[in-house]
């Protein structure tokens, strides 16, 4: 009932409408698009190196004869999966740590917030950059874990401060005075009541993770060859962007569109979930 209302409010907002539409189209392109392409992403066309877009290679070819259309969509699939997984893990972690620290207070709070501070202080880019190339051969899921571990702290601080005020709210006091154990109150009363923040945050974390992955891959610290992501493709393309713009334009353009549409959806969600804000 509430979710229906939120959806209705969201669809009334033109920004969010376009965002959702664009996101849906991009997802279709990433997952259905490759089926219609004439080439597989692993195929190498030794007759066409660095060819501009043509009837056979819709978006041109790369230095080693790969079809840019196929490779870019493959990279986009990876970027999307990484984005969603990182957002899921990091928002979940943020909710758990923040709500627990805020609700329990005392020593648990101090310890958890100290860990949060430590992770904030650690140079995340540097650490991921050192570790991730050494996971060669390991699953790219490790990379997801690394990204997630370094992206939940700010949200968890927000969750904590919201929990601190929720803790004094009367319906939580009522539950406590009823003798309901702390973990149950956290799961039944605290987390559902900060769900707006969590949903919005998860959405924005998707785009942050997509950019984060691309940024690390740009220097070769992220997804390792032969696997591709939008980041590795942009890195390869940007060096040759002046002479061979299709190598750069397609992955970069799709990345921007992807991030833009996710951000629009996130902003629309914020307005729909929190009617007090601005709209």
């Amino acid at each position, binding site marked *: 009932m509430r979710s229906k209302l939120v959806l209705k409010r969201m669809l009334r907002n033109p920004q969010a409408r376009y965002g959702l539409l664009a996101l849906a189209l991009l997802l279709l392109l990433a997952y259905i698009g490759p089926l219609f392409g004439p080439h597989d992403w692993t195929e190498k066309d030794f007759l066409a190196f660095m060819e501009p877009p043509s009837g056979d290679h819709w978006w041109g070819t790369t230095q080693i004869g790969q079809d840019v259309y196929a490779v870019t969509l493959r990279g986009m699939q990876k970027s999307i999966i990484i984005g969603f997984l990182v957002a899921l893990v990091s928002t979940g972690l943020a909710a758990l740590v923040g709500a627990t620290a805020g609700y329990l207070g005392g020593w648990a709070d101090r310890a958890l917030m100290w860990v949060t501070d430590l992770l904030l*202080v650690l140079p995340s880019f540097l650490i991921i950059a050192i570790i991730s190339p050494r996971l060669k051969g390991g699953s790219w899921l490790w990379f997801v874990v690394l990204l997630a571990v370094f992206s939940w702290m700010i949200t968890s601080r927000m969750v904590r401060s919201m929990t601190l005020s929720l803790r004094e709210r009367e319906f939580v006091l009522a539950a406590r005075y009823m003798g309901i154990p702390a973990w149950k109150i956290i799961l039944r009363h605290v987390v559902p009541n900060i769900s707006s923040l969590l949903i919005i945050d998860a959405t924005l974390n998707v785009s942050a993770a997509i950019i984060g992955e691309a940024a690390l891959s740009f220097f070769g610290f992220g997804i390792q060859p032969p696997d591709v992501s939008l980041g590795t493709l942009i890195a390869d393309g940007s060096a040759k962007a002046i002479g061979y713009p299709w190598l750069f334009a397609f992955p970069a353009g799709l990345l*921007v569109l992807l991030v833009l549409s996710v951000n629009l959806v996130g902003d629309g969600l914020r307005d729909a979930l929190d009617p007090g804000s601005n709209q």
Partner: protein
Amino acid sequence: MGVYLFRRLISNVLLVAIAASMAYFLAATSLNPRFKYEGRQPPVAEAVVDATLEQYNLNDKTPVFQRYVTWVSGVATGDLGRTWDGKPVNAELGRRVGVSLRLLFIGTLVGAAVGVSVGAYAAVKQYRISDRLIGVGAFVIMAIPVFVLATLLTIAAAGLNDALGFSLLEYTGEYNPALSGWDQVTSRLNHLILPTISLSLGQIAYYSRIQRNMMLDVLGQDFIRTARAKGLSRRDALFKHALRTSLVPVATYFAFSFGTMLTGAVFTEKIFGWHGMGAWLVESIQSHDVNSVAAVSLFAAVCVLFAGFLSDLIVSAIDPRVRVS
């Protein structure tokens, strides 16, 4: 107050120490400075390499804990050790912080000032065409990652220079070392244009969004109604009461972001060829330079904590509700 300050200092020093130590262990165990000496022509004898690495405290044959102790005792006396090719890290750090500061100072100031103005303007014009255009613009810019933006800027500059037949806009390095005097100053300024745009555009977009939201929050509050009830026009109420009050959260964010930016301009520095802290972050890893990696980590950790402290100070300076009386 003294006790509180002391406790905060202790806990911060502890955090920095742990963060830097973790970074050191990680770098010392997974990076391989020896690799820089191997495969040279003519080949260098292993004993010589060992001796050189030993001298720089980089020898992977020494137990890592022992290297760590050496490093820590150096750091404790203010010596961050040697780079992989034997230069003092301290000097390199000083030079690079200078480069980053020269680049970031203008960029962050422009970003915040323009962003706040644009955001305040959008809030006042809420739902009008100009507000919507600013909103869409901000969203598009925020969706463009810096490395794409910077690349696009270099492409545009190259195209422009080609079309004009001379180099109107420079996009590599900090200045042209061949020039001196006033020419060097203008060269420096020219070299600043594109990186500054690359740095500040995203910030303008971001600040304009938060400033707009903060301002709209404030606009709905009772004291704006009071200001108008005593006879202030809408405009005066907005500028005298809403803008000033909504600056409080934005200023804290500004302080915080400036601190973290010092090591965060990785892409702008790399793409435009500035040898600042951000570039060093990447270069030190790529050149397996353990002590530099540790130095960057230490510096970044100090920056984050200092930025937090700075933003607290700013809040208490501009928000009388928390001012210490």
